[in-house]
């Protein structure tokens, strides 16, 4: 059978190269872990924080793709819109686009009001996703995949511009309760109470990791529910699922609601200071989705566990490059960690054209 496969000289060469790179990377991590254990722990914590954020956004992509066969390029704009609504509700303490004070803020302790605002912002994001699906995606059923992907690019242009004009020129923080604070592992505390050495880990990293684990567990159990089985059936074959009495329209709606909510969660984490450079919602917030796309592709467009693994690999690559290659920043150009995900994606795709967990397309004659 092997002789029948199309000859591609890249395949064997690139597999060898990538194996070498992977072994070298593991050896490098082991070496750094022995030399500077605390720096390594801190790097890993950062990587998990960023990787979890990527994984959340990637999971949104994957849910929408699995449910509706659409690559949603508007995911970044949805992330920005979600973060923006939280900013209106929690930081401005107003109901969006009005001057009425947000009543949720005064319920219970400070963090409780904030949590309620988060829920409201996520619900708004979900409704937005539902509306987009009904109005724009539903009429496109049966059209080529690329046409629908381009439609989402059009949606992205609209949402991005609208959100950017809503941000205006002000700084829009999110009033996150734990802010930039964190804790320190190890290290020595001197008489003045200042800690030196050790690994300082921000709570934001912990929060992102917990949220990602919760989201993936939720998807895991959802896929075993009645609706989840229906969704997997639709992902497998829309017409056959319809013939079995599955309401495909409802599956589409749920996929888009879940995808938009995950995008909004990703947008909120992407605006947190230790994970992102800035602590305010701005045009850059939406780039989280374009940076998470390599994670989706690396893991496989239609694979839930691929989104988690891809997100963590991309996060690790980006943080490691930023940490250990900083002395070459002049040669590599400022902001070089941001393009590391794309390089990892292209190299990864040379080995596995459908990502690590993606389903290869069957070509029938």
């Amino acid at each position, binding site marked *: 059978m092997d002789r029948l496969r199309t000859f591609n000289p890249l395949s064997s060469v690139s597999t060898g190269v990538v194996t070498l790179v992977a072994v070298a990377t593991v050896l490098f991590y082991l070496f750094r872990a022995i030399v500077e254990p605390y720096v390594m722990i801190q790097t890993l914590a950062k990587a998990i924080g960023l990787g979890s954020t990527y994984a959340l956004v990637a999971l949104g992509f994957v849910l929408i793709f699995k449910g509706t066969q659409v690559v949603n390029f508007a995911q970044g704009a949805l992330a920005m819109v979600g973060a923006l609504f939280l900013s209106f509700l929690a930081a401005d303490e107003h109901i969006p686009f009005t001057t009425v004070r947000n009543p949720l803020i005064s319920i219970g302790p400070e963090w409780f009001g904030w949590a309620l605002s988060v829920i409201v912002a996520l619900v708004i994001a979900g409704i937005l996703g539902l509306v987009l699906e009904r109005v724009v995606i539903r009429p496109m059923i049966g059209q080529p995949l690329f046409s629908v992907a381009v439609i989402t690019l059009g*949606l992205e242009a609209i949402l991005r511009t609208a959100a950017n004009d809503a941000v205006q020129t002000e700084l829009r923080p999110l009033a996150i309760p734990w802010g930039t604070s964190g804790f320190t592992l190890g290290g020595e505390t001197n008489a003045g109470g200042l800690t030196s050495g050790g690994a300082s880990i921000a709570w934001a990293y912990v929060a992102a990791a917990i949220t990602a684990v919760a989201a993936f567990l939720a998807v895991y159990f959802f896929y075993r529910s009645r609706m989840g089985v229906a969704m997997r059936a639709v992902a497998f074959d829309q017409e056959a699922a319809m013939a079995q009495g599955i309401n495909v329209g409802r599956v589409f709606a749920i996929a888009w609601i879940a995808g938009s909510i995950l995008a909004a969660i990703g947008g909120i984490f992407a605006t947190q200071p230790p994970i992102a450079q800035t602590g305010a919602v701005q045009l850059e917030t939406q780039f989280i989705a374009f940076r998470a796309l390599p994670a989706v592709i690396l893991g496989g467009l239609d694979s839930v566990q691929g989104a988690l693994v891809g997100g963590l690999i991309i996060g690790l690559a980006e943080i490691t490059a930023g940490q250990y290659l900083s002395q070459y920043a002049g040669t590599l150009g400022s902001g070089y960690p941001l393009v590391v995900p794309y390089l990892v994606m292209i190299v990864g795709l*040379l080995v596995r054209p459908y990502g690590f967990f993606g389903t290869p397309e069957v070509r029938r004659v």
Partner: protein
Amino acid sequence: MTLSVNKGLSGFARLPGSGRKGATLLGRPNLFTSYERESRIFTSTTQKVVAAVIIVVLFLMPFELPVINQIPIIRFLGDGPYLRPVSTTLVYIVAALGLNLLLGVAGQVSIGHAFFMGAGAYAAAFLGGEATSTVYGHGLPIWIWLPGAGVTAAAIGVLIAPVAVRLRGLYLAIVTLGLVFLGIHMGNMDWGRKFAGDPGLGRDFPSLELALWKGQDPIISTADDGRWLWFDVTKAEKIYLVLLCITLFMVVLAKNIIRSRTGRALQAIRDRDVAAEVMGIPEFKYKVIAFALSSFFAGIGGALLASLVGKLPAIEWDLFLSVEFVAILLIGGLGTISGTVLGAIFVVLGPRLIEEVTKWLESQTEATGPVATVADLIVTDGANDFGPVSTATQSPGWPMSIFSWNVVIYGLLIVVFLIFEPLGLYGIWLNIKSYFKRWPFSY
């Protein structure tokens, strides 16, 4: 309606009364009796005449001539302030033809067109630009830097193609998207700045002058106003005419590529790649060719665009530019030359039209009457007005500026066209044509 006939069989299919091989029956313009006749650039005399008239009008458009200046829209487009967007349209047509070869003809999805355009632009700047202390440049003439830009971009396309050939559909789209981000980053790296100049301001690109060699007086100068043949031409008109010649050449080139053996092979791969391979078309080879051809057009388009704008930072070759070209193809209609041209006109001149309409509405707000009321409802020019369009050029916030509205309308156009008319403007044109052809029967 086609009677496709092998060369050996054409004797059978020759229609009674037709002298030449495969001649068209009068009044049956869609009846083709030979393959050569069907694949001609112009299949009927009418098309030839229309094309000739359009080309003549395009060449004479900028000048104050009695007849042409009476045609409603052409009257405006040839004038000074509108000539620049029209020139931009011509450049966009060249680059869009490249994407059409890849996406419309070969069926390979790409949203990395801006990357190849940037590659061409910086190759042109390297060959033809002026060297300064911060950037490279060799000051070579246009007949070196313009083909050089295309060839460089094509070479980069060939380098990338082996990766791309392994991928299908949306995976390919996202990898080409990655190329755009990598390209912008390369332009900001230390060695990239030697080509791209300052990340904020960019560098100067070569101008569209034709000289024999560097340092010599240009044969065709576009630096200032002058006199060509019987006409006084301004600088903008000279640039327009040079671009028009280049664009026409590229349009014919693209059309001929599509008609050739290569073009047919690419279409076969688009329609069914496995079937094409079974018929003996090497898929790998032709996909690499598709990327090379597409990048060649993109490189030339990018070089011309950079030359037209004059100074561009590397960040301008971004995803938005790529999406604009995908939009041109989808709005115009995939796979056809005329669709590409229509789409480019629509996407480049559309925003300009909206701007003009807004300006006109703004001028109407001062008057009284129904028009002024409508204009007042749409345009905001004071603090306490509530129209959705602001006259301030780029201030964020509600009411939104014309710039923001343009992006929103452009996004809406993509959505609306894809939902309601997937064949694009070309499809609308076909509908109109068939309506009149079948009149008075609507079916």
